[in-house]
């Protein structure tokens, strides 16, 4: 019985090594519940900051979860909000990664660096978004459809039912519904999701001096200057 377990362990290790995907991204920020699923059948474990993601890894977040994922070839970033489930895939060439995100449900923000002869595609149950270099939010619901909110650049949004596609520009929201409709309209600011990791805008500049007492209490001297 012991030998059998060893063989199973050995085979699992070998199979795991053979089928382990290429490393393509790293999780840099994690809040709340977030898990990564690997292997086949998929086994989920908690994502921690610094977790390296490989081709074929699945990421899912709980009701308070948030994960920032950065791709290693061009620093394109995915910010995955709560109640989201997706698969990250990437085909490596010598210097670039053809990236494809298969999102089943949820909300994400994609900040995509300019793609040179590579693909960045996000597939939902309803649509395919092809990206060249842009910043946008995607809210996907398999029962209603997709909402793509353009923040920068242009995203091509194609409906899988009808094959109709539109280019969603910055400041516009593209809708792709499960009944095949695709349209866009000017973005209502109130519909833009909140980014927990939003880059801040500050007035002026500041100098911070961090002091820590013997009990570990931290004090900060903040000097703001123009």
């Amino acid at each position, binding site marked *: 019985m012991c030998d059998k377990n060893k063989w199973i362990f050995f085979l699992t290790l070998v199979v795991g090594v053979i089928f382990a995907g*290429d*490393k393509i991204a*790293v*999780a*840099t*920020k*994690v809040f709340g*519940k977030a898990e990564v699923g690997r292997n086949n*059948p*998929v*086994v*989920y474990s908690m994502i*921690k*900051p*610094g977790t*390296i993601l490989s081709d*074929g890894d*699945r990421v899912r977040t*709980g009701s*308070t979860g948030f994960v920032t994922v*950065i791709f*290693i*070839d061009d*620093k394109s970033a995915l910010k995955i909000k709560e109640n989201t*489930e997706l*698969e990250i*895939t990437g085909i490596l060439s*010598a*210097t*670039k990664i053809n990236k*494809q995100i298969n999102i*089943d449900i949820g909300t994400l923000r994609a900040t995509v660096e300019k793609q040179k002869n590579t*693909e960045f*595609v996000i597939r939902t*149950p309803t649509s*395919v978004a*092809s990206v060249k270099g842009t910043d946008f939010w995607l809210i996907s619901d398999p029962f209603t459809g997709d909402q793509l909110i353009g923040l920068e650049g242009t995203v091509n949004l*194609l409906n*899988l*039912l*009808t*094959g*109709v*596609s539109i*280019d969603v520009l910055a*400041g516009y929201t593209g809708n792709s519904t499960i009944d*095949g409709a695709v349209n866009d309209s000017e973005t209502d*600011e*109130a519909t833009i999701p*909140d980014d927990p990791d*939003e880059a*801040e*805008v*500050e007035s002026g500049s500041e100098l*911070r001096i*961090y002091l*820590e007492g013997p009990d570990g*209490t*931290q004090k*900060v001297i903040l000097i703001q200057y123009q």
Partner: protein
Amino acid sequence: MNAQITGFIRRIITQYILPFSLVWGASSVDELYHKPIQTHPSGENIIITLSTVGNVLPIEGTVYYRTSTQHHFQEIPMRFQNAEWKGIIPGEQVVAPALEYLVILWMNETDVIAFPRENPFDTPYRIIITPKERTRQFPNRGKTLSYFDETVESNMMILSPEQGETLHRDQVVIAVSFFGVMELDPESIQIVIDEKDFTDQAEIGSGLISLVPKKLKPGNHIITVFAQNIHGMEMIPIKWNFNVVKYGLDITDKFVYDGSLSWYLSTEKVVGNVLNISEVTGKINGSLNWINTVSNFRMTTRETPYQQSYNRVSSTIKMGEYLTVFAGDFYPHLSSYLIAGRRIRGLGVSLSFPWLKLDIITGELNRAVQWRGDVNQGYTLNSMLTEVKEGGGYTYFLDRTGYTFTRKIDTYRLSLNYKSTFHFGLYFLKSADEPGSVSQRIPSEATFTVDTLATGITPGDYTFSEFQTALAAANGTLNFPSSKWSGGNPEDNLVIGFDTKTYFDQRQISAEFSWNLSLYNRNIWDGAMSRTEMDTTLDDSLDGLIGVQYDEHGLITGTPLMIDTTLILNPVAYEGIFTINPYMTPLVPFDYMSYEKHPIATIINMPSSAFHFRLNGRYPGNSFHLEYRQVGPEFVSFGNPYFTGNIREFTIGDRLTMLDHKLIINLNYKYQDNKILRSEIDPLRTYTFAFGVTLIPGQNVPSFTLNVHSINRNKDIDDFGDGMDMREQSRTSNALFSVNLPFEIVKTKNTLTINYNTVNNTDLLSERRHPGYIFPKTDTKTISVNITNRISPTLRTIFNAFQTEIFLPTAIGVATAIDNVKWRSMGFGIHYAMFNNKIRFMGNFSTLSSSDSAGLNFLNGKMGCEVDIWKNVRLRFAGNLQLNENHLDQTDEDETENEPENPSTSTWEMNTSGLQLSINYTF
């Protein structure tokens, strides 16, 4: 302590001392032993050792050494320890390819012994310096590279943290990519934070360095990443800094904010009606480490007291992970059976812990609207009820219309979560109109029409005071009730329910169940009924018993329930929770007669209940869905008025993705009917089967989509007498084929999309219909073509055209025919950006025409321009115009026979037009 030996000292030792020493030292050398070093790794200290065997004791020793690039020797004093003389050549001097050394030992003031014995300065020992073994020791990395150091660019990319970024102590992740960096030796990578080596804590490989450093102190930190190429050449290190703060304690933490402010102005003219709108909208987000706020507002000129509010003001405050407060206008979603999608103006609190969540919402669904602002939209004179009163004159009946009650809502939801594998939620909704929120008397400008049936008063539009004056003059009296107006009854609603969800197989399968019950009262003008009223309402006789029927002799008939009214709850006591009176639905939650025979079915099929069971599976490449849902015909929730009632449906579907998600196959089956109540004898059954296949091989290659729906409807009516034939046994076939073809012509990227869609309806009862029966379903056939062109990064165009054929069944006498109508449209749009995308023009032109007798023709044009007039300020200007062609019959008196009959001319008229201007500022 080592010093460069001068040529003078070297000459003295060589020419004057060593020749004598050789004579003296002949016996001493045998008692001193040195084993020359042959090879040594670079960068590591070399220890030169001489062992003493006998009684010979030198008084001083020196090691002389030089690297292969040095002409002069350097000296290092030796020390006597444990019967050995030792001299250490420092590691930084030990560099490839070789190092030469010799040892001079002074036996006394004049005698020396040298190693090597013969001409030590001319033929010193030679050590081959080998490249250092790959260990994670980098003694040289701290030095500053000089101009003369041979280095190469590293091209490593910082992924995290950003330069100068402030991070919480538990969120520090250092990630550097060397993916695609040519000839970088991963083994040579060294990560230094604040001059401390963290390389051993890092994960290095596959083009990525990932490091989660343990316990970095708050403050500023400097990271340096060193690396060499595979030839051993040092790459230029990358260096950056970041700040670490303690979570939650740094109250002076950075307050960050952003937001936007927009002003929108539009004027629209639609068939002669002008509508001007001005709106100001804004959003501001602010956050500290532990608190986030999001505030939105919209102020619009569409706001009017005659309708529900168009203005919106809302604020969400999120404190950590545990508490969220919503204030103002917000759209909660607690359950689709409870509240989903309805705007609430009020307050919401969500308290969330890992195992428990409590949601409390209180506010208004509707605000009170007293009247609609138009004639007869506040008061209505019911002339038909005008009566002659005793003593002469008339009594007139005035009524109130055009109002909306304040509708209050309170909802609560308590959710339990066990290890994220089992969820249970219990919820409750109470919503009711406030009859007192609408006044009997409304503003004096409200007018109503007095028509000719109101005898005695001159017809016309009157305000209330004007009517009173007229009334006095006509010796009339007014009957104006203080409640129970015809404009609508106040209502009451109560919903309770629960939902549960659990997961299986690594959370890849979820199973959920929800059950809900509503109580609805469509008229609470009179409030709750008393026990006496309940007695007579439920069995017609006031006997203190419910469920007892009597015959004409006063004898009990049938099998009575005989429930003593004093033993059941007093509706008046529970009026604060729900108003129980004869207008409530259901009056009895379920059919107690049926309950005895089919208790489970009776409970499940309660007309005011709604429930579903849902199973979702989400595996890689395969997602399936199975659901049974039933909503009773009397289920009502004010929180979700759009809920479709009287429906029973079963759905099963599967979605397969293959070929790396490039081939997608959808299969779906749905059965639906409305036979929840036994009383429904002619239910409509619908069977829907859907199949779809999509192939999207990749970017810049054609993609194909085929979707087929088959919908069978069946409504059997055995005997419909002489009335309309309401039977239905039909099949609707819907097929859609789409091809998306990207292609490139002369550096112009284009996409051609062709869609073909048909809808065909078949009456399966056609052979059993009466002559002249028109099957009331319309077939359609649509083909559309879209071509999008990206001529340059700044110029894009789109061309589209479609034709829809509609086959409309019509009656010609007793015969039926198919009327064929075609709609055609063509359009062209352009988008052009200039001045580095700071100015963007948009234009669109399209036509729409029909082939029927009306011959409708429309021309549409839209133009717009967006200008980034400042860094964060955007100006947008747009206009639209629609013209339609009017055909005018020309009846010329002197028309001749040669001219066609009913010649017509046409004119083009402006149908709609509009201008929009907006300014958006983001900060």
